[in-house]
């Protein structure tokens, strides 16, 4: 579904991603693992074209994305949930959802506001509140719901468990499983190995912008030295 081939991404002169390649197949949940500064967020942004790779290709359902503006990437069916959430704090919950709304697409599950409120009941209660009056966990729910309003075929979740309470992390894991059951393909970036193992089918580990491991969690268990070298557990 998504194929990233040998991309190199930079912030100014800093070389962040170095010859990174990976695939995401339809229907799976992939966890992108690595330490702080390993390049996880930059990978997500490079798919979304918020950071433009200087070399390499990003292909989504047969379509080349490098050089396209971000809104067109979104229209192709990739939904992006940023690490820092970036909800519109002056807008109400309903208005935040409205910004994300896009037409129905054939190859992806279709979400209505009502369905999203079933998955995220807290949001329904706070539907008339402004974004800035919500807790971190609620904001995290809102940013995911907002992206789902665009009916994406592939969801990029950047560190969804970061900075929220453990109870909410558990809810989040359930939510991701629900999304998968609905037929959504998901890629999450994580530092939390337990959380990743609970929700994902496959792990990709990067360090210093390079891929170090790509395989099942069973394989990862079999090689504790990889985990020790690239993940802080």
């Amino acid at each position, binding site marked *: 579904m998504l194929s990233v081939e040998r991309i190199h991404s930079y*912030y100014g002169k800093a070389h962040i991603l170095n010859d990174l390649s990976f695939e995401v197949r339809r229907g799976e949940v992939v966890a992108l693992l690595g330490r702080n500064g390993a390049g996880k967020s930059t990978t997500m942004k490079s798919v979304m074209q*918020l950071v433009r790779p200087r070399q390499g290709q990003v292909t989504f359902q047969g379509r080349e994305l490098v050089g396209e503006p971000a*809104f067109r*990437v979104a229209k192709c069916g990739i939904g992006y949930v940023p690490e820092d959430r970036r909800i*519109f704090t*002056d*807008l109400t919950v309903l*208005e935040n959802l409205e*910004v994300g709304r896009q037409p129905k697409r054939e190859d992806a599950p279709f979400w209505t506001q009502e369905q999203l409120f079933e998955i995220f009941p807290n949001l329904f209660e706070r539907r008339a509140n402004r974004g800035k009056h919500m807790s971190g966990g609620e904001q995290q729910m809102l940013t995911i719901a907002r992206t789902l309003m*665009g009916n994406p075929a592939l969801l990029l979740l950047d560190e969804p468990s970061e900075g929220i309470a453990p109870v909410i992390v558990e809810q989040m894991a359930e939510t991701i499983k629900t999304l998968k059951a609905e037929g959504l393909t998901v890629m999450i970036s994580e530092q939390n190995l337990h959380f990743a193992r609970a929700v994902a089918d496959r792990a990709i580990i990067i360090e210093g912008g390079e891929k170090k491991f790509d395989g099942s969690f069973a394989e990862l268990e079999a090689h504790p030295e990889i985990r020790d070298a690239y993940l802080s557990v």
Partner: protein
Amino acid sequence: MAFFFAQFLTGLANAAALFLVASGLSLIFGVTRIVNFAHGSFYMLGAFIGIVLMDLLPGHVDFWGAILLTGLAVGLIGAVVEMVVLRPIYRAPELFQLVATFGVILVIQDLALMIWGAEDRLGPRAPGLRGVWRIFGEPVPKYDIVLIAITPFILFALWYLIARTRLGVLVRAATQDREMVGALGVNQAWLFTGVFALGSALAGLGGALQLPKGGADLLMDFNIIGAVFVVVVIGGMGSLPGAFIASVLISVLNVFGVTYLPQSTLVLMYVVMAVVLIVRPYGLLGREEVAGEHGQVGAPETPIRPYGPKGMALVAALLTLLALLPAFAEPFVLTLVVDMVVFALFAASLHFILGSGGLVSFGHAAFFGGGAYAAALLVYHTGTPMELAFLFAPLAAGLLALGIGWFCIRLTGVYFAMLTLAFSQLVWSLAFQWRSVTRGDDGLVNIWPADWLNGSVPYYYFALAFGVGGILFLRHVIHAPFGYALRAGRDSPRQAEATGIDVKRVQFVAFALAGAMAGLAGGIFVFSKGSVFPTELEIAKSFDALIVVFLGGVKTLAGGVVGASFMTVVEDWLVRLEYWRLLLGLVIIAVVIVMPEGIVGTLRTLWRRIRHSDEEAV
């Protein structure tokens, strides 16, 4: 009492058009972050197009139909301007776009002159609303009452659009984080064009709506833009109700000002703005701008480094050439070079606080003209020797900058820019309206240099020594520890504070220093021309400096100097032509689009690219 009330109604009626124009500017700024100087031009276009359409349209629909059509037409023009001029440069450094909009002002001015001629036009009367109604015995034009009646509907319609429609939701979201709006699948380019068209349409509507009261003329664009900025800033950037309250406030104040304090009309609204900003730094209903809120990741800044041996050699060669110039050049060339040096020092002083300090001042002319006036007043009133009066120019301008800076430095971004504009307008109106001291627009004349400096060659060397000296001094400061502290405060105020730099104090001192250097330029100027007029304190003078700094390149040291030299030469050529504004505007727009990093910045990038490909070839 009745008279009082009638005056109040006139003020309210005037507020209608002002509010339309101001809300358009506020919308455009909120979403695109463009300070659109050309907004007054759309207002002027609205007035002229309105007259044309009112003539063309038949019978019953003529007046009100023409107003609506005018809005549409000006909106379309706005969309075209946005797509052709602004869309290519959204990625340029912040506020760079305002230079392009200044080019648009010039182009529209000359186009209007070509199409409609220089004569003022009277606006047609609204059908059925020709007379007056008597209210408490005082005559109030019927059209005024109708305007007052429809203003709340305009406010409601705009509020509905912004608060209740999808477009409004997207506009508010984009005001906060436009990149995220894009990542959610919204085409920002069209959103920007749409908002720009809407804002322009509102300005056009305002221009057409005021026709029965004010008519149309070629000065409308500059006349309203000051008031519009004041309204938007007093109300709070991006706040519609704020803009409404401020429009009423300013319009009513103006009407009473004309009646009771006719000597202070020019300055009244700027005084109000200054007071509001000092008490409420983000306007009546505005909110604090959070830096970095938009979450855009740009390339890190290339630090400014002292020139290497090659650069030094080039500068030395240039200076030698300038020193030898009187040996072979005609006197008029020397005069042109003095103009150039004066402008270059003025621009370099603005560049110093803008480029290195990150403080965009819209009122730098206060210090240039302030210095010139300080010297001229001494000579004129007390017959002080020229040498002393000349030294007084930078001193007085520096003191003035200390005073103004004390109020302004606490603000940042556009609010800082606006408060500096307000103060410069205060200084300007002093020079303009305090006739007993400054002789008003007759100016101060016969301000000549001392005998030993009289003549084009001696004064040429004098101007060169102080002008170049001032520029080199500023360069030295930028590379001194004080300059590092200033740049640290620009790039990351919090980080700088954390390392022990008192950012506000450093900026305050830098502002005063820049003011003193602008005053020095003013001092050189006044003795080279022998006179000074209030035009040297005008908004246009401040904008001239801004434009050359941006044209030359904000992020390069030589930017201001190169931009000023470029502009002096280009203007010297162009003003001989009939439609020179049109050409100058097009030149500015072209430079902005072709060289988004400014002249020096773009040349530097090109030079690097050439060197890089050389290295690769080797």
